[in-house]
């Protein structure tokens, strides 16, 4: 991707910058956080930000900065996992159900059944069955988004399969699976990317909710969701316990949405030429 293209969209650049920053922070967490996130220091509990602790400390005297930094790891991994899981499977199931109509009844009814469960309940049940842990939490939350992605992809497939260029491909002897892989799916990349950015954004909140209910990531692992739930008791006394993880979630969600917009334009060749002025 050309750098000049992003420069022209400064807001988007800010989004990408924040994501890049987040990635660096997540990767370099051990170097950034002087104090390990689990270290208890009851003497310094509930210290306000500034001074020895940049973001202050929580009720156990743990360094909030360290926990936010390590939380970035947890949140990014969790969000990316949910997006990967729900998008890859969702596109496959949705496109197959929409294009190969014989599979439609089976696949879509299965999806409808899953959609009938309240999302959080479904996630809770799945975590209870699978047990806690990152992968299981990703699957539990991902299933909810999977059903939505399947619905979106299915609807798009029904529309795209009627396009004349699909008929043209069939007439040129393109095999059915190639029609799906080379024509149907590429032509819905933009909405899928938009869907993926939403999925990423909202899954952060769902992951946090599971953590909040104590059914997410084990509490020993710092996550922004854990921090919010633990800090809520000190909302008035120590608002920084909520401000820093909360702001992190907001900034991350916003950045991914901005980045999604740019990627959508970028993936549409027609818009790309216009924006780049080639």
């Amino acid at each position, binding site marked *: 991707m050309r750098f000049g293209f992003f420069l022209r969209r400064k807001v988007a650049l800010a989004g990408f910058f924040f994501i890049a920053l987040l990635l660096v922070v997540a990767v370099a967490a051990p170097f950034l956080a002087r104090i390990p996130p689990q270290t208890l220091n009851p003497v310094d509990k509930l210290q306000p930000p500034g001074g020895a602790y940049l973001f202050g400390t929580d009720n156990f005297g743990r360094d909030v900065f360290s926990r936010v930094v390590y939380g970035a790891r947890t949140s990014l991994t969790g969000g990316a996992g949910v997006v990967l899981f729900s998008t890859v499977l969702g596109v496959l199931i949705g496109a197959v159900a929409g294009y190969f109509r014989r599979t439609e009844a089976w696949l879509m009814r299965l999806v409808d059944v899953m959609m009938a469960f309240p999302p959080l309940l479904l996630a809770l049940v799945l975590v209870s069955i699978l047990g806690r842990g990152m992968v299981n939490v990703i699957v539990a939350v991902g299933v909810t988004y999977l059903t939505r992605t399947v619905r979106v992809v299915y609807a798009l497939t029904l529309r795209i399969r009627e*396009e*004349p*260029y699909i*008929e*043209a*491909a*069939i*007439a*040129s*002897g*393109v*095999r059915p699976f*190639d029609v799906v892989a*080379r*024509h149907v799916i*590429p*032509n819905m*990349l933009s909405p899928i990317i938009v869907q993926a950015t939403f999925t990423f954004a909202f899954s952060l909140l769902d992951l946090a909710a599971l953590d909040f209910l104590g059914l997410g990531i084990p509490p020993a692992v710092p996550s922004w969701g854990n921090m919010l739930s633990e800090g809520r008791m000190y909302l008035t006394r120590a608002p920084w316990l909520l401000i820093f993880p909360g702001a992190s979630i907001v900034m991350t969600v916003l950045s991914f949405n901005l980045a999604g917009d740019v990627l959508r334009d970028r993936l549409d*060749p*027609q818009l790309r*030429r216009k924006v780049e002025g080639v």
Partner: protein
Amino acid sequence: MSLNPSNEAFLQVRNLKKHFPIRGGILRRTKSLLRAVDDVTFSIAEGETLGLVGESGCGKSTTGRVILRLTPATSGSVLFRGVELLSLGGEELRKTRRGFQMIFQDPYASLDPRMTVKEIVGEPLRAYGVRSAAEREARVVEILDAVGLDASYLKRYPFEFSGGQRQRIGIARALILRPSLVVADEPVSALDVSVQAQVINLLLEMRARFSLTYLFIAHDLSVVRHISDRVAVMYLGRIVEAGRKDDFFERPLHPYSHALLASVPEPDPFRVRTRSPLSGDVPSPLSPPKGCSFHPRCPRATEACGVQIPALKEIDEGHSVACHLYA
């Protein structure tokens, strides 16, 4: 050249029917049938161009799509070089498709907007096992040159082209497999008049160069006159007249053909013309009139026309008509 089915015909369509069920109600029961193509029979000899004309909605495009197996037929038979296309399925059908290709009406919607010219035109090769990208590219360049497009366009996307250029891309895609039969479904009706002539001439040039057989579907009689060897006129899913081009244009038989020919715009303003515009609209194919489907609009209709469907009969040599006037 005969319209009557003969065994050595290159493409032979017999009693072809395509009925769309119209469903309604909670149980989606078939309420009625839309007879888009109703008992169509014709044949095309190798190297010949048959112009299939009719008003929009008369079933001419559906006929083309059914023949190419892009939509399933209700009944009938389509023999392409002696092979029954309607009974082929799956991979067998796909392999046979090599021999017959289609040029689409809409040069905008029929090219995948996310593919480059190289990918679009090279895709049929890829589908039929040309794995080497270099070989595909060489053949794409070759066919692009044949249709009058420069190799520098390879990496461009469809939206960067004009309608005429896009149709050239569509023609290149249809011809890269060197098919013997090409169904052209209103290939110029979406183009500017000035570009239409260029594309028609390109189709003529390609016919000579690659010895193609065309089924040319159109509603524009002047275009059909230019390109066809024979003409078949469709009305409400049926062929009402068919014959050699000169016979048809000089001595049209069916009253509907008369009306169609009278509606062709006359470029000479001083020529006195007798216009016999048709009154009324095309009846709905959902409930076609009893008897001859044209009789409610026909200026020469008799009592018999409302009772019995006239069969397509050969009146002169190679000139057939489905009309009670010629019984």
